[in-house]
């Protein structure tokens, strides 16, 4: 299952707004996307679950994607996080 770790670059980390951008992209992919911080892994389509990870600027998060075309989706999601999730 393709997986990559990426560092959050947007100022507020995964506050509600950027978390929503990320969850939307995960949902749009149609694949199973999980996001992990430390020992906790959550459903990336769930804004509430992402919020409970309490992610800040500079935190590394790991994204797992499962399904057909997972590599391409992972690329997209990593680019999205690196571009600041619509925040800056």
């Amino acid at each position, binding site marked *: 299952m393709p997986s990559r770790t990426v*560092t959050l*670059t947007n*100022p*507020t980390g995964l*506050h*509600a*707004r950027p978390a*929503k951008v990320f*969850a939307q992209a995960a*949902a749009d992919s149609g694949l199973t996307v999980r996001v992990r911080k430390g020992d906790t892994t*959550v*459903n990336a*389509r*769930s*804004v*509430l*679950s992402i*919020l*409970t990870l*309490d992610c*800040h*600027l*500079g*935190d590394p998060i790991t994204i797992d994607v499962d399904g057909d075309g997972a590599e391409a989706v992972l690329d997209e999601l990593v680019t999205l996080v690196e571009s600041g999730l619509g925040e*800056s």
Partner: protein
Amino acid sequence: MTASLVGIGAAPGIAVGPPLLVEPPVTEVADPGPAGPPAFEKERLHAALTQAAEELHAIAERARGFAGDEAEIFEAHAAFAEDPELEERAVALIDAGRSAVAAVGSAFAAFRELLAASSSEYLAARAADLDDVSARVVAILAGVARAPELPPGRWVLLARELTPSQTAEIPREQIAGIVTETGSPTSHAAILARTLGIPAVVGASGVLRVADAARHIALDGRTGEVHVDPEEEVLEAFAVRDAQEAARRAHLDAARFEPGTTADGVAVELVANVAGLDDITSARAAGAEGAGLVRTELLFQDRRVEPTVEEQATYYGAVLAAFPGQRVVFRTLDVGADKPLPFVAREPEPNPALGVRGVRLSLRRPKLFEHQLRALLRSHRDRPGGGVTGIMFPLVSRVDEVVAARSELRRVADDEGIALEGIEVGVMIEVPSAALAAERIAAHVDFLSIGTNDLLQYVFAVDRLVAEVAELADVCEPLVLDLIGSVVEAADRHGAWVGVCGETASDPGVAGALVGLGVRELSMVPGALGEVKDLLRRHDLATLRSVADQARRAASAGDARALISRLG
């Protein structure tokens, strides 16, 4: 019955109107009744969540027209209602025999607990948002009308506390003002009221009792005054105040992006205190000419491990990017034993105000200090749009601390291969010994920034949070003005500039006197910039100097304040 009380002003402006009691949203249904077949309950659940999300999207859409960015709160609320994990948890509870209304309440409560348990203030505040959404879904399932049609007219809303959606759902044109029994000025509802320009008073304890059968409520959202069934004189006075405030706001707004200067064109940099990234927006909107005090503590608090150099550099970079071409002064880590960091193990101190804090801590934790300097230097090097970056050391009490901190900065800069071009080094003058040694300190730095809050505390040996003694520590005490004047004179002899950061800079008259003493940069909360700018632009430097000189030699703080208040 006529009555008056005072709460906390949460959104400025005057409002007069008949009261309308707003009931709190229903968050629980006393008896949800027996659950229907699971398939039926699941269908109801899904329909209610979808309806709630649709309503919230619609509120966001409507709010966008008048509330701009604040409208996004409701998009976040909609995302909560649409959350797949939330629905999944509720479905599992329905499978276990619960009704839709009971299941969704428990599912929201479970997430609420996770958020409320976080040490992050941001997440804890989202817990309240979750309640708001939960109440909406529960109301839909229970068939309770949530937002009753308001009778026609303009009302002063009375409530124990208003939720953001209550504030936004009631048509703006029907709200004259808001008074709540509890609540804080930083709640979403208060922020929304400010954004919408609705005068609001929060924390008006007792208002629900005294306003029970009132016909009229008058409130001043700046002073926090609330008058129930006011006398004619009060209404007249409020009408006058209202007109004056409106004219004043328009006047200050018009000069928002004009530079800070005296009437005869002497530049005074009017800049903002920035504690977190949220402050940047208000600083820019208020026309700040830069940032005179960027507190870096926020990045370190609530953390189990020290933030990495990269993370710090990204954060500092985000602040710098907001002020292209302008001066931004960062204060290096200023914490002490009263706010211990988990990754800096320290013994508790009997008196944290006099212990290892500010630069004292940085010099004792060389790695921590080095990492912060590295991050500051890198963010300056990569700064888009250029501009001067200031690095300022807090709680300096001796010149050798300045020499040590400065040489560490030079060493790290050499190590990073970053030139110190465009970087200014400064010292906070907040300890009396540093103020008295200003001459020797100024020889080593580019600027001094007088932190009046702490300076007053240490000069008078007064904790300003102790109300009984707080008034002893008055910036208008002639000896304090004289001390500030002598710091400026010492700095002048070494070509260093002097700024003031601290609450005193936001008092327009005092700000005028400080400029008269030779201060050329004033850093304050963004909301105070307009009034200070207005005062400075009305007086030439000679007038400000003359007032400052007289105040410096006055017999008492009262006399000095009287002189200063003439600047008006």
